């Protein structure tokens, strides 16, 4: 755009453990910043209105819809995206493992957002009921599975986390 009055904001984020400085333009969403400035394309655009949850990331320990979050409003932030979920040794974390083992998802487009929502859910409810899982996933749409396999995956993840007690998701 040719508007020279547009003022960018320099923001400092720790993304998946790594420090970044980004020139955030007004109107730039956290989704665009993560995908286009940082090249982390595992976070997906689905609707741009906050309804589908494909863009879910973790911001300062809580999940947010990155499409609705303005990058320039976050001068300092701790951000975790799907790329940051693997353990230090490169293996899958128990929730990722359960999503794969249980065929929780199909096309995989919603899976990153679903995973982050599931991780927050399991942090709050280590042994979630069906109703708690439904609520925990209520911000994420999946068009492939009909959700039953996702519920199964979340339950399997809960069991895996119980087995490796003392471990928090992630």
């Amino acid at each position, binding site marked *: *755009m*040719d508007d020279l009055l547009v003022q960018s904001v320099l923001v400092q984020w720790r993304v998946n453990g790594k420090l970044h400085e980004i020139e955030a333009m007004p*109107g730039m969403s956290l989704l665009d910043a993560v*995908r*286009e400035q940082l090249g*982390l*394309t*595992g*976070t*997906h*655009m*689905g*609707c*741009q*209105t906050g*309804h*589908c949850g*494909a863009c879910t990331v973790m911001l300062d320990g809580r999940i947010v819809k990155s499409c609705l979050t303005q990058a320039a409003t976050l001068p300092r932030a701790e951000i975790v*995206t*799907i*790329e940051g*979920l*693997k353990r230090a040794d490169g293996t*899958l974390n128990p929730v*990722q493992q359960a*999503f*794969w*083992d249980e*065929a929780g*998802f*199909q*096309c*995989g*487009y*919603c*899976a*990153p957002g679903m*995973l982050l929502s599931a991780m927050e859910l399991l942090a709050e409810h280590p042994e979630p009921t069906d*109703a708690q*899982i*439904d*609520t925990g*996933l*209520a911000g*994420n*749409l*999946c*068009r*492939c*599975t*009909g*959700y*039953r*396999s*996702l*519920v*199964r995956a979340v339950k399997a993840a809960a069991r895996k986390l119980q087995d490796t007690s003392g471990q928090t998701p992630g």
Partner: protein
Amino acid sequence: MADHSTTDDTRYVGQAVRTIEGRAPIVGAARYTNDFVFPGQLYAHIVRSPHAAARIRRIDSSGALKVSGVVRVLDGAEAAAHLKPITHYIDPAVFGGKSAEVRVMAVDDVWCYGQPVAVVVAEDKRTARFAAQRIQIVYDVLEPVLDAEAATAPDAHIVVPGWDSNIMMQAPFRNGDPDAAFAKAAHVVKTSVDIHRFSTQPIETRCYNAVWEHDIEGVTLYATAQNPHPLRHVLSEVLGMPESKIRVHAPVIGGAFGMKMHGHPEEALMCLLAKLTGRPVKWTETREECLLIGAREQRHHMELALDADGVILGLRDRYFANVGAPSACPGWGMAFLTGLTMPGPYAVRDIDVQMTVVITNKPSWNAARGYGKESTALALELAIEDAARQLGMDAAEIRLKNFIRAEQFPYNSPTGLIYDSGDYSGAVLKAMHAIGYEGWKARQAEGPKDGKYIGIGVAFELTPEGGALPGTMVAGYDSSSVRVAPDGSVRILTGVTTPGTGNPTGIAQIVADELGVTMDAIEVTQGDTTTCPYGFGNYSGRSTIVGGGSAALAAQQVRAKVVTVAAALFDVPEADVELHRGVFSVKGQQGRTLTFKEVCYAAYTGAYSVAHGITLPLEATATFKPSNIRHTPDENGRINPYPSYSNAAYVTVCEVDVETGKTKVLAFAAAHDCGRVINPVLVEGQACGAISFGVGGAMFEAIAFDSSGRQLTRSFMDYVMPRSEDLPAVKMVHHDSPNPVTYMGLKGAGEAGVGGSAAAVVNAINNALIPLGVSLNTLPLSAPNVWGAIQAARKRGQREAAE
């Protein structure tokens, strides 16, 4: 969950193997089309018509061109100078209909709200969007036609200039003597079924990124495309460029469900813009744009002739499909399939079905999972429910009385289809048992509690799969290559593609068994026209039938080669060589083994010794062509375009809160026949996904317009799709009859679930509302619509009481 037990654990087929493509998305490594960015990348933004019907008087792009960062602006007339009309995926003219000239952007006349009118290409997407607002377009707004039946009126606005009417195609599906059947009927039941416009809406919207290849003066299109090879053919015709200069690459696809079949204007348009700018040009669809793609808006006027015992003697249906504006996409063909699939699973011979496909000023359809067969199921099952109600019969009883019997297969349907196999009564009985039918009936008999009424719905669905339409790129066959490298690793390349259904894993399971290797030795490549064998991609539940079938044949050929080499190495007859999971052994001689890798390396390096008798390399390409597809018309001019007839029975229990109209699915059972099951978890995933389409379509999802034809449904705020809490646990039982002509009896598992589950839910809700005198066959049965119907029935009751 269904029983996942398998009879033979020495084989991968039949086992719930974890998907080979499943790791990438959960670590953020799967690359979808929108994830590709190339050096010099440009971005396109499309200006769309805000009017449903208009003439374009003037387009002034000068304002947009002044914006810094804008590289190119193009309007419809200029695009038409460079591009031919888009080739129809399924040309209506081939089937006796009218074929419109579809351009990538409107030239002079606007046919629908949202039609592309101009495009801006800029250095970044924000600039493109900003500049697009500076294009000034002057329209003469016309009165649109929006309703299918109204559009057939003699004085209706003609959507396509030069056409004599808005009727694109009319076709009868007629057999026997329906008039005689109706003349002798004890009961004639008339039911109008209004199926609304609803859409597939994959979470990944469409995206095209065209890269100009300066070296060959060709183009590579990265595309959310289900059918890369046929799309390449269309691009070749539209761009006037040989297919050999075009590469279509469909990377990981985030759900498709028919919507990513081609004919969309943006495909060729991005290629043209890449050519004109010499730089990569990307367009990513917004959700608002994605919601413009409709499907299924169809009104049926059904009549059933029944004898005194509830046997259906004849069927009449006059149906009108509102397919919107002309499009090159294959959506309109859904309406044809609706008629062709009549009368579904029922043994009715005397039928008189008349299809009318109508063009209106609504946005166009594209293919949607179910492909018209879901509308057959809805129309039939709602009409039969009406008949059961009027005759005082049980919903299951009337169906069991009228099904084609298991011993009647192969069955020649009255429209010319040849159903391969099935046991429809058995499936319904299994689904009833799974849900506890009698228990729920007893609970229903106890009456409503706290204003909540319970209803039970039964429905059946026949979904012909693997379709092949003559004279079109909807082919019934497909091909795969199996390539084994000197290190023994295996690459499968297929002509079929995956929109995320798991078929690469199913195909790898088949090849692992047929070739004799372990699953971890296999990689699968799909969706690239330069590397994969010519293929037709993904539609019609075909990918495992023909993709798996052809990969099995190729694997058998490669296995024969490596067995020959191993026999030479062992110095034993070939018949004595065994190969299982990557290890060769000799029958009866313990301890003599060779690894797959050792034999493959010996083959590649022993062309004049141990591999003398085989053709190197260790590769084969094979085609699977189901033998029962028949395109030569019979004496009545009928063809059988389908090799496979998947089917399923559904029983649901719904609860209706009569004070709010809110409905809830309490229990759901399905008995599914998709033939032989390769991977039970993946099959169940397909079925549950289709069921969520059906339940969502029946209860929530709808695309609405205002009276001037502007679409009101523009985001997921308005287009309400089921979330986790909205869907019940599904009790899934398999009731498989293997298809006698396909590889291992495969039938296709992708589509069954949409229409049958939608019909079962509608029937359950209407069943619940019998005490209130409500029968609602105008979909969707959303809370406001149900509440409205209850209020209307109450007022009617009060009026009648007063009289």
